[in-house]
């Protein structure tokens, strides 16, 4: 169904384009496929699959094992409002420092995670993602019709805020689903299941050659997913 292309652009401090990489994406992940299959079913008969979030923690489809997602509600979620409420992570394309041995079974970008979040301990900060930008600056608000079919583009701009160059070798398109965690019992007795936020990689790609992003440089990463017509 789906073919995707990625594009990586690096600009220096003056905004001059210094690197462009563009190619067909290679790898939808097994985590994505498992969640996708689960979304064909209802809560009572959904098969139990294990999926892993970007940090490698497992969660499950169906309801027999916790944390569980049931039938993968809203599995393409890149909503910054929701993400901010539940985590300091920023949807949607995260970056890693090493290539992945097998992107189809990777849980996220490989090596050190360097662009994912709105936290100081990561070298990259999201740039130009915000409520005033059209669809938060993250995605096409509507599909566009192109020569190759319906196209939906999702992108991030990350600014290297650190004082060191950072090498990028892999990237992942990260969506999130809600899972429900183990029931807790406290002073008041059994509590409702905890609602957990599970970012997972739907697509993982290695870059054909690693890209170095110098301090103050901006990297723009995009995936365009095509639905043939």
């Amino acid at each position, binding site marked *: 169904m789906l073919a995707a292309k990625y594009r990586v652009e690096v600009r220096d401090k003056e905004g001059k384009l210094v690197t462009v990489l563009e190619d067909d994406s290679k790898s939808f992940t097994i985590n994505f496929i498992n969640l996708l299959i689960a979304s064909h079913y*209802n809560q009572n008969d959904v098969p139990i699959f294990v999926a892993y979030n970007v940090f490698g923690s497992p969660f499950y489809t169906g309801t027999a094992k916790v944390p569980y997602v049931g039938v993968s509600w809203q599995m393409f979620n890149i909503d910054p409002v929701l993400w901010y409420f539940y985590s300091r992570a920023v949807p949607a394309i995260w970056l890693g420092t090493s290539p992945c041995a097998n992107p189809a079974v990777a849980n996220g970008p490989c090596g050190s995670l360097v662009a994912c979040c709105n936290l100081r301990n990561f070298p990259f900060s999201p740039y130009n993602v915000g409520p005033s930008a059209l669809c938060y600056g993250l995605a096409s608000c509507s599909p566009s019709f192109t020569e190759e079919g319906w196209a939906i583009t999702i992108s991030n701009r990350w600014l290297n805020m650190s004082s060191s160059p950072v090498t990028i070798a892999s990237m992942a398109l990260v969506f999130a689903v809600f899972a429900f965690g183990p029931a807790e019992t406290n002073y008041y007795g059994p509590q409702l299941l905890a609602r957990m936020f599970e970012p997972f990689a739907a697509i993982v790609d290695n870059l054909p050659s690693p890209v170095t992003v110098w301090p103050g440089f901006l990297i723009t990463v995009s995936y365009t997913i095509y639905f043939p017509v």
Partner: protein
Amino acid sequence: MPKPKVGVTLRIEVRDDKGRVVKVIETPSRSFTQNFATLLVASMWSEYSISGLKNIYTFYDVTGSPIYVVGLTPSPPSGSLYLYDVGILFYSEPQGIASQYQSYTIYMPGIWPGSSFCPDPKYAYGPCSPISTNVLSPTLFSFPSSPYLTASGWQMTYSQTWTNVTGSPVVVSSLALVFGMTGDMPSPVGYLLYAAIVDNVTPAIVINPKYSITFTYTLLYAV
């Protein structure tokens, strides 16, 4: 830039009343619908953001009725059906389908046949002139139950067989892959049926009495 490796294949098999294969067509599928692409984009946002984006997403179900995805501050046209957000896109089972489809020509997810060509399949709401289940009787819709990795990528196969239970030949000119979708709604409604893919069958296929036709869509997700 090279064209991406897109894998959506449609296979059509016609069998006679003794189960012998009399015709096979295999062709790339051409048309994801605008409805599908719109729903996928809408499903990226929560109800909070759809309100904030001031963006009402409109799609059409298999009957051609408009459905609005409006976020938390709804202002859809009065009397229309609306959802706060989009939650599920690929529901494939017969249970829980919204009651308004019980009186429609076909009333559950599957690969639906139509007797007319669609002028522009990417904008069609379903197969054109859907054929009643009293004319072509369906088997259960078969859809993926486990991941299957091939040399070309993750393969997802959808299939359904329809048998001519009348005494006259039936012509099939179009077909549609129909899923159920749902989101948060103001009141319980159930899964709404929409066409994700619509294709014309050229030339049209004639199904004689007691003959059956099997439609198979194979979707590949690149690896």
